[in-house]
């Protein structure tokens, strides 16, 4: 969530005040954690100290896994494998090559990231369950590998790892070790928190809401997910490095599947997508595990081994069934119930614009890469077959820049299929789509977006986990430049503020400013559709594809939409729209193309298409006279 600073307010503040406002939560949270960790060694028993040290060590892989699950929407069942790779590499560098600690640790972290990169390269292309099972397999591979390899000490492992020395002080007790470890955990925490609020983090959260819409706005899902996966392995590797220091022995047990389960449990208890939750989860699971190891042998005499798994299994199931958002969900719902002065009452999202004023207050920017009238989009021989069914058959169309093309046709004529092939959501069976001289068909939607083509969807693709302005802000994705690294370092607040201001402006063009801070899922259907158009416009496209932009809109809203489209065309934007409201298309479009049964049966100016006998027959039935009568009647009513 972005902290509540309106753009106007932020502009008046000093940089320090703005920094404080934007990072209040992180600063307070980390401050409390640091104070606790400083005080803890003076007050805690040695047992509790031990648990806290391990909780802090495992907080690192948990933060990493939380990023992967919360942002990339993927599960790793092999987080322990990366933990083990970090630990083993670090241990080998220290004991065999006698490298200095910081160098050995860095190599350990990089090794974990490298393996994640190699595994992720093929697997992150696939969706669903594959990453989970591939990482599960990786865990076994790593365990087999370290058991069979002389360098890793086979079943004995590697021992004799010396404790580190900082400024001449040997870190030889748990208290010192906690102080040695805490800065790294805090830095990791801050980097992860920054990432979730960054351009990349928002993009990934949008991908989880609607992959199709996010890709259509230019998000390269695959690359971002791969980066997050590599990053999450880096966190695990760092945890392994500290584990090797703390335990002084690295054995095949570090790659155990059950360790991966406990790291997963930390994330699930804490709440998917909540970085603080992962840290809290690490503490809870360590205490739970310790408690279970004491309690279970007392209840079941003779029980030995990994008995804490009983608790892990039960808690995993119960949290998902009863509290799927984990501690984070519990905390936020509790917070919302507290009386809190100055909290804004939720606005009425369904308030209707009453005045009959259809003027457009602000016109969004558009890009005009080619001269007016030059071809911007060329479709040739576009065909889509599903088995024996031909959905779109050999369609040829050229769209000149700065015009509106209306694509009409009866239900099932193949209009949306055509759209999906143009935007990259669907791979054509044959034929090509050329946009600004580049062939974009058969590529992913983010490729088309990167050339300046955006679209809206017939079945709305709203980013439900953010507010209205957040949706439009995602449209600015391509205008931003900050990558994962800059996002983690928090070096993009100026860029974010500017894009947020731009998002507010675009909302004003559709008179949606009042609803800007409402949850996107609370909007009426028509308003959601208008928001999607704003989102597409935020990308400052050269070509806008609108799939039934008028559906679900009130009469007044339709007039605003039509006026906006006309003004955008005057500004040089090229628009292709699929629409059922034929009268609206006829009055808006410069050219109209008619699809019937996947075949382009007419293409020309509205007047000639209206009088084309084939169109009339296709549209309104077989009897030509009757159809004409119907059409006239229809137009009189509009």
């Amino acid at each position, binding site marked *: 969530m972005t902290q509540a600073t309106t753009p106007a307010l932020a502009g008046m503040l000093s940089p320090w005040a703005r920094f404080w406002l934007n990072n209040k939560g992180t600063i307070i949270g980390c401050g409390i954690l640091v104070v606790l960790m400083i005080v803890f060694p003076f007050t805690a028993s040695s047992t509790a100290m031990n648990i806290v040290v391990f909780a802090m060590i495992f907080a690192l892989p948990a933060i990493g896994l939380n990023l992967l699950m919360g942002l990339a929407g993927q599960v790793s069942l092999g987080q322990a494998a990366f933990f083990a790779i970090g630990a083993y590499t670090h241990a080998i560098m220290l004991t065999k090559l006698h490298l200095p600690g910081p160098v050995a640790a860095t190599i350990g972290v990089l090794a974990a990231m490298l393996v994640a990169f190699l595994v992720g390269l093929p697997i992150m292309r696939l969706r669903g369950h594959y990453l989970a099972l591939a990482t599960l397999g990786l865990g*076994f591979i790593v365990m*087999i590998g370290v058991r*069979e390899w002389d360098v890793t000490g086979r079943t004995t492992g590697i021992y004799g790892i010396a404790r580190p020395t900082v400024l001449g002080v040997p870190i030889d007790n748990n208290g010192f070790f906690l102080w040695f470890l805490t800065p790294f955990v805090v830095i990791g925490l801050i980097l992860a928190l920054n990432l979730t609020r960054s351009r990349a983090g928002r993009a990934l959260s949008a991908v989880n809401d609607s992959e199709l819409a996010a890709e259509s706005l230019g998000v390269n899902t695959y690359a971002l997910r791969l980066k997050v996966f590599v990053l999450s392995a880096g966190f695990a590797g760092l945890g392994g490095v500290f584990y090797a220091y703390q335990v002084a022995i690295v054995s095949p047990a570090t790659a155990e599947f059950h360790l991966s389960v406990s790291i*997963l449990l930390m994330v699930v208890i804490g709440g998917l997508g909540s970085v603080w939750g992962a840290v809290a989860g690490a503490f809870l699971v360590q205490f739970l595990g310790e408690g279970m190891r004491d309690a279970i042998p007392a209840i079941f005499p*003779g029980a030995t081994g990994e008995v804490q*798994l009983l608790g*892990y299994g039960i808690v995993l199931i119960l949290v998902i069934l009863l509290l799927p958002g984990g501690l984070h969900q519990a905390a936020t719902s509790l917070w919302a119930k507290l009386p809190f002065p100055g909290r804004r009452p939720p606005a009425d999202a369904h308030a209707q614009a009453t005045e009959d004023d259809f003027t457009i207050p602000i016109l969004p920017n558009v890009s005009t890469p080619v001269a007016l009238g030059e071809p911007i989009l060329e479709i040739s021989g576009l065909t889509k077959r599903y088995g024996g069914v031909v959905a779109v058959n050999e369609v040829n169309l050229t769209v000149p820049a700065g015009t509106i093309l209306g694509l009409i046709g009866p239900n099932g004529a193949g209009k949306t299929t055509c759209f999906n092939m143009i935007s990259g959501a*669907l791979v054509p069976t044959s034929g090509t789509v050329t946009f600004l001289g580049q062939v974009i068909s058969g590529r992913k939607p983010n490729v088309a977006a990167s050339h300046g083509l955006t679209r809206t969807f017939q079945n709305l693709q709203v980013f439900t986990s953010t507010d209205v302005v957040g949706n439009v802000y995602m449209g600015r994705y391509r205008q931003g430049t900050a990558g994962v690294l800059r996002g983690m370092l928090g070096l993009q607040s100026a860029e974010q503020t500017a894009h947020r201001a731009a998002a507010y402006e675009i909302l004003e063009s559709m008179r949606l400013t009042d609803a800007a801070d409402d949850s996107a899922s609370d909007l009426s259907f028509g308003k959601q559709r208008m928001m999607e158009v704003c989102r597409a416009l935020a990308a400052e496209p050269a070509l806008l594809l609108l799939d039934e932009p008028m559906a679900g809109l009130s009469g007044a809203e339709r007039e605003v939409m039509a006026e906006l489209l006309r003004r955008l065309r005057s500004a040089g934007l090229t628009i292709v729209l699929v629409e059922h409201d034929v009268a609206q298309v006829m009055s808006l479009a410069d050219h109209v193309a008619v699809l019937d049964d996947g075949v382009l049966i007419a293409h020309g100016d509205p007047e000639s298409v209206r009088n084309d006998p084939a169109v009339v027959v296709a549209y309104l039935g077989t009897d030509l006279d009757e159809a004409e009568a119907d059409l006239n009647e229809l137009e009189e009513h509009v």
Partner: protein
Amino acid sequence: MLTDFLQLTVAGLSQGSVYALLAVGLIAVYTVRHVINIAQGEFAMLAGLGSAWLTASGMPLFLAILVAILTVTLVAIAMERLIIARVKKLTPLISIILTLGVSTLLQAIMLLIWGPEAKGVPRFPGTNVLIGGVSIRSQEFWMIGALVVVGGGIVLFYEKSRWGKALRACAEQPVAARIVGISPVAASVLAFAIAGLVGAVAGVVSSPIYLSLWSGGVLLGLKGFVAAVLGGFVSFRAAIVGALMLGMIEAYVAGYVASGLRDGAAFLILILVLVVRPQGLVLKPTAVRV
């Protein structure tokens, strides 16, 4: 030379039969619920340890096996009713966490009841056979036979019976399935019952040779998953062929390379298949992305 090869092939085929049964269970659940059941391997271990315990306490072998298989089938149904059915929106993420929770819980229960040591069911009746220098243990006949009878039976059920066809339809066409007279609830229960049944059969027939261990189910389930991936997660036949191939490859790796590396083969095959043909061995590639 040839004798060694054939000997390894027999071992691989019998082990592969176990993977094939697990793959059948995974696919049965996946086609209906789109859930990858991480607890599939635990069904096998539960049945193996259960029948080992029953026979050790004096129950006749085949009665013990029958009791264990029925119990595990009921456990699978209970898992569906009490846990899986309670989640409204089963995303891949949620289904993995949930079935992992069940897997962990079942492991812990087995550990508490039967302890950390591996246990085996007594050998099934029969005599070992020696053909041209290749010895085939009677238990290996039972393992392959279990695949032919139970696995083959399930495939026939799916392809020939009305209920089986409805189950297949359920994944894509819940309404059509309802018209044939099978509700989505019944389909889901039936799918889990099949998963429990085949898992339990795999567990008891392999236990005399390969033993049953409280924590052994995850790796076994993963092998079943690899086989299911080879079948594109929809085709029983392709998955069974894939499972037998996987069993043989593992046997060759163990025999010719190093026995410690045998479990690594499955993972490498998994990665290779996912890179080269993520849609499995038999299906045509599809281009649909929406």
